[in-house]
């Protein structure tokens, strides 16, 4: 009877069995640092990573601190990924060092559900500090790594993050009529502690921040995927 674990959920599942079962903690560990990078330097893939983070934060508890370098987030779009404007606090940092320091303050406060930051460069020390600040709390630390230069992989640098994701755009779900269907992302777990890396295509967050398996993938594995879709 692990009621303690039930009450204070240590990890945040995606609600997709095919994805959660491949994660070491059956989800994203709450008291840890997770990194997300866009598949390329293009703004559209950057936005896919943004919404991926927004969906994770939306499913976390409590208020969210989003530390930005530029004021270009569009709150109506984030609220369509489930991140309500009432939960979201923005902070603007002047440089990466300040951004990491603000993130650390947010993590140590313990009253936030998630802290999101967008950096271009963060070395091993910085990510280790964030990981240490997150440990022992319930605040999920999400670091978005931006492409500093064309052709450089932001996830190539060493990091203390528990999971490292790469999110890119994929053609949307086809509709029987003309129009743009539900967006899809190519999500790759590049590295995780205590688990294998994998790559899969998911449908973008809905209004509650939950991703879903595309129908053709779900139908192929009727037992696993279909159940996950209904649960989502």
């Amino acid at each position, binding site marked *: 009877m692990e009621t303690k674990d039930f009450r204070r959920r240590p990890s945040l599942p995606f609600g997709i069995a095919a994805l959660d079962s491949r994660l070491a903690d059956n989800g994203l560990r709450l008291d840890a640092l997770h990194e997300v990078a866009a598949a390329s330097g293009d703004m559209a893939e*950057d936005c896919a990573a943004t919404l991926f983070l927004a969906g994770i934060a939306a499913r976390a508890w409590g*208020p969210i601190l989003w530390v930005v370098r530029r004021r270009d987030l569009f709150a*109506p779009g984030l609220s*369509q990924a489930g991140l309500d404007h*009432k939960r979201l606090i923005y902070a603007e*940092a002047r440089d990466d060092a300040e951004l990491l*320091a603000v993130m650390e303050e947010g993590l140590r406060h313990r009253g936030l559900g998630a802290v999101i930051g967008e950096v271009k460069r963060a070395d091993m020390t910085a990510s280790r500090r964030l990981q240490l600040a997150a440990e022992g709390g319930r605040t999920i630390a999400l670091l978005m790594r931006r492409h500093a230069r064309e052709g450089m992989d932001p996830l190539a640098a060493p990091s203390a993050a528990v999971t490292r994701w790469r999110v890119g755009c994929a*053609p949307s779900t086809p509709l029987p009529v003309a129009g743009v269907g539900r*967006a899809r992302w190519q999500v790759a777990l590049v590295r995780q502690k205590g688990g294998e890396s994998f790559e899969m295509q998911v449908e973008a967050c809905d209004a509650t921040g939950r991703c879903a398996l595309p129908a053709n993938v779900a139908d192929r594995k009727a037992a696993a995927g279909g159940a996950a879709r209904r649960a989502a």
Partner: protein
Amino acid sequence: MWPIERLRQAERRAAPPEPRAPETHASLDPLRQAAAKEQEHACSVPRGGGWRPGARWAREDQLGKVALPPVTRQPAKHEIGRRDEAAANPFRAVPSDEGGRSRFLPGLARGGEPSRSDGGGAAAVRGNPPRPSTTAYGGGSPPRDKLGEELPPLVTSIRNGNRIVIAAACPVAQMQGLGPGMAIAQARAQVTGLDIRPADPEGDRAHLASLAVALARRWTPTVAIESDDTLFLDLTGVAHLYGGEAAMAARLRRMLARLGYTARIAIADTPGAAWALAHYPRSGLEGDGFLVCLPGTQIEAVAKLPIEALRIDAAAVELLHRLGVKRIVQLAAMPRAPLVRRFGAEIATRLEQALGRLPEPVHPVTTPEPIAIIQRFAEPIATAEAITHWLGTLVPRLTAALEAKGLGASRIEFVADRVDGVPQRIRIGLARPNRDGAHLLRLLLRRIEQVEPGYGIDALTLHVRRALPLGPEPFTERLDEEAAPDLATLVDTLATRIGLGAMWRNHPVESDVPERSVACMAVLDPPERAGQRLRADHVGQLDRNPALHPWHPEWPKPARLLRRPERLDHVVAELPDHAPRRFTWRGQSHRVVRADGPERIHGEWWKRAAEAHHVRDYFRVEDDVGRRYWLFRKGDGERPMTGDLSWYLHGIFG
């Protein structure tokens, strides 16, 4: 008068700086003189004749000219007789039935019968039998604004039950017969161009209290607020500092005049006598605005005053008047025992207090003391460790001082006095009033590297620059949900690092133009303001549907919005309402395979007239590799006035 003058003072403060006289005046003067010379010889009759008696130009427009007849033409006797001011009102002034006193003729009102004028009074109490003095407002010329024009009569209105009545009236209005208690409708009918403002009794009282505190700090330690327009000042042992009582009263009056307040001051041995002399002035007071009643003479001074000057209730005054008792001297001659039996102890007490036979304690205002915790050192300290150590002892003392007063600090300044006299300051602000020692200490220690000890620091001080009441607060007592975490400490911590301006929250604005649909607000503001509650009979009550969210959650919106839309090149699109087939953005070509739209957004002509005809057609497009963008075209493709059909990229979907 206090409310009126407070209003005038606020206006003066808010008024824009006086405009400089235009330079052109001097250059125009010769022209103007020449024009005047020409006009002198012109006939007042319009060119071409056509004069007939009673013509409109002769009645109205030309009256001014007739009043100053040109030298060439002496007006006829009947013409001079015709131009005249309005005849004096043949009716005698009648006391209004509102209960107010008739003030139609200011000379009468201020002359014979001493009338209670509602001026602010400051009563200074001196000597062992306390000696009162009062201040009152004089008449004077009507107030003028900066350009020298007379201000319209000003009254303040207040709701009294079902009626809206005058709360206070300026001297000009009083001269025209308006007074407190008169119905606003009647006043409006009686005086044209009346300036009516809502009364603010709370604000007036608060302002008077702040004046009392200022007087207590600067003039005399004991200042009591007697009523809404009267202060008592105890001058015991103070007046000689200002060169005597008369000099002090004159100086006080000048000081108040500089602030824009007319004061009537009377100085006497007892508060009661001072109140009476200030509110019911004898002729001596009107001249210089203050009156000093020599010690021991207050009995003679107040003897001739009406009994209202004793601050007794109106019913008793009324009854005494009916019994023929009009003056204090008559009242003083009466035996006390029947008086007390008939009217209660109040009249006798007030009388004896005014005459100095009974003490009258006053309740002085307490001046708020700023909280400052000081630690001096015999030997200067210079290391960060020492400062940290002493901050650790200063902050608990500060929180204890704050707790004793029930306050929470919202701005704190830490001053380190250096040996060479260059103070080192650290200022911290708190988002909410706080007296949590650990939190304050954390905020202060974070900034400690800004202190340059130099040759050493010989004193450390913590000043509370701003404090607000902080009491116990209710919390949501629910077992099924956790209490919302307090973000104020986080905001403080981040504000010391990046500043409050770099943190914000968003809230929706009802606007379809994307860049206007989001507004920023302070982090700790209440996120949702309760909507305006509709009246029970409001037509909006018929709408049972929930209000639409301003962001239209069903319509896809991008995750990031470019600060300003970026122009697209090489756009291939069909008119009038098709999405582009291909476009180039930032040098990269995109082939569109899927598209949604258009979502037409019209300019908000009610905000800017220039966008009255603007139209944007928004499209959500997806290119061949699955990247989704939010484009728009200016113009609807049919009417050229709506836009030039140029394409822009405004946002990016994930």
